[in-house]
């Protein structure tokens, strides 16, 4: 018994401490170093942080290079699979595109409206730039769902930066290095996102399931009865970790029908990500100027401040009065010149009227003379025409104008 225990101790001691000719360190030393690294890496020392960042940069780049052949084979396999369903997909996409184009216009209007409303609510406007980032490491680990992108603190990426696939949320940055960052995907078990489920307008939190979907958690009992397969999930913005209104996915019922469990199917396929957008947000104050002015006023004596305001008001009123007087004078001058012009025009009009009437008289006379030549003999009183009229009378003129018809 004692011998076997001795043997065990000798074997263990040998395993921990014995170095063969090839080994530079004993295993016990390396175990101690490992434990020290675990402890040190969790302490937020500046030196440790820089070292960690350096190691991360180096390892991520190396991993990207090493993964090139595997990624090539993997991507080729996916591309071949895509080509087989290419035509069908093209038709569907074409239909979807025409529908989306029409929807896009209304969504743009909503975006502007939203921006205006946010300006009214907040004292700042958040302008955001989406930075395109390439995924350099994506090993789809079964334990942790994360990706490495080729943008870091150099590109203003910060911890918590939202990451998108087109306009769909895929995760947030949890580790930032100089030129690389680690993004925790929404499918990870450690990812919790406050969401709104529309159209029911139910607030909930979704947690990654470790697969390509998420579970809906923390909702009141009975609320899940209202869910349909049409329900969509988007960020609520609670907690200010994620921006509000970012689409995530749609509600699907889990197979467990008795318990009425619902999952969220992401719009984006995280296993197919190649490029993502990281949203760099900058806050711009919009009320700063007004606030500064207000602050300078309040710093003075209140009575003096009031007087100053009244003086300013008086000055403004006087200035505007002088302006009105000037305007009044110029308007009067304009009225006079216009009156003169009107009288000129009126005389012109009367002259023209006279000419027109003269012209009309002359025209009537001409017509009478022409008819007189033709029908004058029928209307003139003579030996053979007893019914006729004396030349120059109004009856004679009337007869001529009636083309020789004599009134009985």
């Amino acid at each position, binding site marked *: 018994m004692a011998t076997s225990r001795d043997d065990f101790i000798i074997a263990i001691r040998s395993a921990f401490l014995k170095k063969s000719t090839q080994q*530079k360190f004993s295993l016990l030393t390396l175990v101690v170093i490992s434990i020290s690294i675990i402890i040190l890496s969790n302490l937020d020392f500046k030196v440790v942080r820089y070292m960690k960042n350096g190691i991360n940069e180096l390892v991520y780049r190396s991993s990207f290079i090493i993964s090139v052949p595997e990624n090539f084979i993997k991507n080729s396999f996916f591309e071949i699979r895509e080509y087989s369903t290419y035509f069908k997909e093209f038709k569907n996409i074409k239909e979807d595109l025409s529908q989306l184009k029409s929807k896009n216009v209304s969504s743009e209007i909503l975006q502007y409206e939203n921006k205006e409303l946010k300006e009214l609510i907040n004292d700042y406007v958040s302008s955001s730039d989406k930075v395109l980032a390439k995924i350099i490491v994506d090993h789809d680990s*079964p*334990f942790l769902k994360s990706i490495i992108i080729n943008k870091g603190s150099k590109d203003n990426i910060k911890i918590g930066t939202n990451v998108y696939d087109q306009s769909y949320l895929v995760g947030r940055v949890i580790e930032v290095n100089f030129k690389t960052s680690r993004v925790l995907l929404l499918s990870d078990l450690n990812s919790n996102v406050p969401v709104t489920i529309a159209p029911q307008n139910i607030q909930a939190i979704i947690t990654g399931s*470790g697969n390509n979907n998420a579970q809906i958690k923390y909702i009141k009992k009975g609320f899940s009865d209202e869910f349909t397969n049409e329900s969509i999930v988007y960020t609520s913005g609670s907690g200010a970790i994620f921006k509000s209104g970012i689409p995530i996915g749609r509600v699907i019922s889990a197979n467990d029908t008795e318990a009425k469990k619902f999952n969220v199917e992401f719009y984006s396929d995280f296993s197919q990500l190649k490029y993502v957008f990281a949203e760099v947000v900058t806050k711009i104050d919009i009320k700063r100027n007004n606030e500064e002015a207000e602050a300078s006023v309040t710093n003075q004596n209140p009575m003096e401040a009031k007087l100053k305001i009244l003086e300013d008001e008086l000055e403004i009123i006087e200035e505007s009065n002088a302006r009105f007087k000037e305007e009044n004078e110029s308007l009067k001058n304009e009225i006079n010149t216009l009156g003169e012009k009107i009288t000129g025009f009126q005389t012109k009009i009367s002259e023209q009227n006279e000419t027109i009437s003269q012209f009309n008289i002359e025209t009537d006379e001409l017509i009478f003379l022409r008819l007189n030549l033709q029908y004058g003999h029928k209307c003139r009183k003579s030996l053979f025409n007893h019914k006729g009229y004396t030349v120059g009378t109004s009856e004679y003129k009337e007869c001529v104008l009636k083309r020789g018809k004599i009134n009985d």
Partner: protein
Amino acid sequence: MTSLNSRGFYFKFYSLLPIIILFISVLNEFDFNYLNLKYFSFNFPFILIFFFTLKDIKNFDYLLVFLAGLINDTVVGLPLGISSLSFMFICIATSYFRNITIRPNPVKDWFYFLFIISLINSMNYSILTLFFSYNLILMSYLVNTFFTFLFYIIFANLFKYYMKGLDD
């Protein structure tokens, strides 16, 4: 002279092959996860380290294994040092097993491997959930352990050919 030099280079490369594959596998996460089989995964570095430290081959330096662990942590996103500690425990276990074994038996090695990886994965799971508050799926760990155990015998037979080549 030239041929002797080139032969020396090839031999050196051949003898360093396990450690090169170890580094490639930790950098590349060689585990066929993209096949999207539910829970399917296996830990290739565990197989490699267990086999070659058990055989105590030349150039399979503990320090390099330790560095491979650090790289693995960085790639996977685990707290730095966790994988190094796991790899070191495999080395200790194999060193102990080598010391107590008089007549090596592949089946015994295989089941001893199962015991060791179960122990190490349990330790990893406990450390990550208790000290680092990670949410992990226990089933993933169990399935990973099972497939790593299954794949060991296949890879062990392949590595035997390598060992044969090294002896020749």
